[in-house]
């Protein structure tokens, strides 16, 4: 042992932080306090009782943990280290989710009282800044989609799709076709939320399957549309990363039977400034600000959704909308055809401001650069991936992909019995997240990679090297894969109980109730 230091091996020798933390209730010590509450002033205390009506007064205080402040902090900091986070990861394995850099400057910008300490019902004269940013973001997204009007009220992509479905429904009700048009057409490689929200709105769902090109033949659409069709709800490029070049024709087909067409642009990352809802003739579309527009994913929300519509549908947008009047920004709530509220107030402001900042740092040229480099990165991965033995990119052979590719490990599986889930668990040992794509697995043993613009070539190579290595291990040493993860916070987790109502434990209290031996043990200890 002495200088110089040998070269590092090809693969990172990773271990995730492991704190073996108890569940927070186990850290409770009677009498400890995490934070004290503003006290009732002596004068108020003298004259005012705090008793509640005896019928409703709580008799037993809730059994929350009692912990000193540093203990609470420490527990959650440790848990945070046990969480990978896009900031620490080469997060290209979560295809369809557009994991990209959420710039820290945008987080810094939002952490100010001038944003977090605004009440939605305060004098609009004192929230002109917030309203201005919402309005500007609406304007920008109108241009990015090519459509005419935008609402930022929803807090996720699916909720924005929901709002779009609700507007479709309202539109047909407004023209007296609400009862007739009860079908919505989607494709199996469109995000599940298109089907699910439409179903929740009361529609019957017709799902088309792809041919060898990766998308349904246009003839399939012709077979299913009719006067009962309310709308097409489609992602394009679909989850395969394949762009359906017939999209305009398809939209026209729907229009020809009086139906609408709604475009799921949750992920517009590969086509920013390249092609839009407008060019293909869509009536509605939505964006996820938490994907394409970089707001952080926040462990699964809050996100922020944008619903964009043509002028024809503008009056159905959720209320209020923010409009500019002279130099002032006002809330317009007087909109009788509106579908009303889909979410509280005006949307997830911190995310709207973040997205606005992100866009304003890039401009039109920058957005296009985002798209181009995302697509470049994706095709670079594709070129490499299909050279890995056992991996394929189903459909449309030799065609480029847009922003992502749904790969298949089926060949590897057939040869070795190693599944995509197992590969995923093994990838964790190298500090990389890997997701096996949405059910149902139309593509067998799927893996969807979406590199976005945020990752450097070296990082893409790191990911590829790990996959190459695991593909080789599947042949040479499958046991190490089957017993993975080895270098993670926890080890292989059982899962039978998760689907067994008698045995599952969704909360600590349910766990103690269902497994009294644990409570007994705990009581014995203390």
């Amino acid at each position, binding site marked *: 042992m002495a200088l110089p230091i040998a070269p590092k091996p090809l693969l990172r020798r990773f271990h995730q932080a492991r704190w073996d933390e108890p569940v927070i209730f186990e850290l409770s010590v009677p009498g400890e306090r995490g934070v004290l509450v503003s006290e009732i002033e002596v004068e108020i205390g003298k004259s005012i009782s705090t008793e509640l009506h005896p019928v409703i007064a709580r008799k037993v205080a809730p059994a929350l943990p009692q912990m000193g402040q540093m203990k609470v902090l420490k527990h959650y900091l440790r848990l945070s280290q046990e969480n990978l986070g896009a900031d620490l990861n080469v997060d290209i394995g979560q295809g369809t989710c557009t994991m990209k850099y959420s710039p820290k400057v945008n987080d810094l910008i939002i952490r100010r009282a001038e944003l977090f300490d605004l009440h939605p019902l305060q004098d609009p004269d004192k929230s002109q800044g917030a309203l201005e940013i919402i309005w500007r973001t609406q304007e920008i997204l109108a241009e990015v989609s090519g459509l005419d009007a935008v609402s930022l009220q929803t807090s996720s992509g699916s909720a924005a799709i929901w709002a779009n479905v609700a507007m479709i429904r309202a539109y047909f009700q407004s023209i007296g076709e609400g009862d007739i048009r009860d079908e919505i057409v989607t494709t199996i490689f469109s995000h599940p939320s298109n089907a699910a929200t439409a179903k929740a709105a009361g529609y019957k769902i017709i799902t088309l399957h792809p041919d060898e090109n990766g998308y349904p033949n246009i003839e399939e659409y012709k077979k299913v549309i009719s006067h009962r069709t309310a709308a097409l709800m489609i992602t394009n490029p679909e989850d395969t990363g394949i762009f359906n070049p017939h999209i305009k024709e398809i939209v026209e087909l729907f229009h020809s039977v009086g139906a609408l067409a709604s475009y799921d642009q949750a992920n517009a990352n590969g086509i920013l400034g390249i092609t839009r809802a407008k060019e293909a003739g869509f009536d509605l579309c939505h964006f996820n600000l938490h994907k394409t527009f970089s707001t952080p994913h926040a462990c699964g929300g809050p996100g922020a959704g944008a619903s964009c519509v043509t002028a024809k549908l503008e009056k159905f947008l959720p209320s209020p909308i923010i409009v500019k009047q002279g130099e002032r920004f006002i809330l317009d709530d007087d909109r009788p055809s509106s579908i009303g509220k889909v979410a*509280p107030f005006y949307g997830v402001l911190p995310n709207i401001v973040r997205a606005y900042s992100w866009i304003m740092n890039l401009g039109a040229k920058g957005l296009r650069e985002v798209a181009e480099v995302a697509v470049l990165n994706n095709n670079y991965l594709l070129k490499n991936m299909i050279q890995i033995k056992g991996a394929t990119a189903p459909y449309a052979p030799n065609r480029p992909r847009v922003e992502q590719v749904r790969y298949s490990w089926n060949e590897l599986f057939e040869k070795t019995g190693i599944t995509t889930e197992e590969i995923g668990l093994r990838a964790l040992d190298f500090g990389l997240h890997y997701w096996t794509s949405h059910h149902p697995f139309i593509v067998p043993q799927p893996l969807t990679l979406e590199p976005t613009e945020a990752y450097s070539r070296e990082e893409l190579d790191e990911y590829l090297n790990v996959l190459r290595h695991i593909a080789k291990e599947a042949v040479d040493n499958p046991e190490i894969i089957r017993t993975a993860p080895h270098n993670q916070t926890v080890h292989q987790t059982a899962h039978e109980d998760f689907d067994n109502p008698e045995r599952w434990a969704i909360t600590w209290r349910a766990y103690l109730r269902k497994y009294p031996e644990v409570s007994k043990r705990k009581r014995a200890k203390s």
Partner: protein
Amino acid sequence: MADRSKSAHPYIPNSNPDVKKAMLDYIGVDSIEAFYSDIPKNLRVQGELNLPDPFLNEQDLVRHVVGILNKNTPQGEMLSFLGAGTYNHFVPAVVDEVINRSEFLTAYAGDPYEDHGRFQALFEYESMMAELVNMDVVNVPTYDGMQAAATSMAMAERITGRNKILVASRINPDKLSKVLNYNQMKLEFVFINEIDGQPDLAGIEKHLDSSCAAIWVETPNYLGTLCTKIQAISEIAKRNDSLLIVGTDPIVLGILESPADQGADIIHGDIQSLGIHCWFGGGHGGFIAVHDDTKFVMELPSRLFGMESTSVEGEYGFGDVAYERTSFALREEGKEWVGTAAALWGIAAGVYLALMGADGMVEVGQTIIARTRYAAKKLGTISGLKISDSALQFREFVVDSTESGKNAKELIALARKRNAEIGVPISEYELLVCVTEMNTQRDIDQLFDLMSEIVRAK
């Protein structure tokens, strides 16, 4: 010296021309255009998007955006008594510290291995919420309390197979708008007016029939009134095999008996009060709680994180309970849908509850009650204003200004001139005034002075 035009954009490492070229060469194409060959010419945007000029460097960007934000005035710089859906409660610093950790802020959909922390934190959130409501199952938060309400109704429809909801409390109109629109294809809503701020039992009985999926009560209701009749309504509901759905705000549950202990089958609400800033109304999350009964659990659309053993003794593992319910698994055959929701706010609420503990939740309830009652009492002494009995009010109460001759909008306008927000107008002469632990006696005394003055003002 430096040629500034050749810089890669800081967020796009491979935007450096040399790297691009090398990658294109490796792939074996000439230009990025090649990757767009599937997009027909007639679908292509002509020229550049028409967007405002960007601020390419961080320094200028910050100046621009912060410049706009500084046109706002935060509540902390005025006298503010606004509620009606978004509440100004205290947020301990540790909450923000935890949710601003890169690991939590930027994570998304990792497995229960590399995202063990997220799973555990949300399991703990579920578990602490469960203690508040005394029920064994709480979801990973959905978007907001409005969605939680809407979904609770939809669940009742699926559970009972019935299609009518009796609305027995006065509901926040925004929430109602959402609930009605959301459920319009499947549920009919029948409104039964409150009497003296409490549900009308006789009215409920009158509308009860075999199509009644559930009775919907809120405590506190839109006007801040706590409901004393939940137990009674629960008995009525039970007799009819209808469900009792109760909306509440969890911040009251340190001092209020959980509706579950008075017979509620589904409890829903918003968690914004639990450690989440106002964010101009953009800081909401919804919870839904049910008993550990398959019939109910399987109708929840949200994710449910549960605990599990691992291959190592004493190690806590976590994962998705009953994943096959969800739209992720089943598309339209799943329960409503699931996706990005409000997980980080759930972590925030969990940290908040852990910091507060039982004592903190009791105390904050008491402080709010005391200050609300104090404010109601004081304002009630102003001639021209009428406040109904505040004994059952929590955090909000109604001020009726009819006798003063000034309507709510006029009063608000006068107050705003004095840098104060005195409440939200809910009818021509009614103001909904909100008092939280953030409003000290001094603030309330100032409100009193100000109201006395503006009521008299010419």
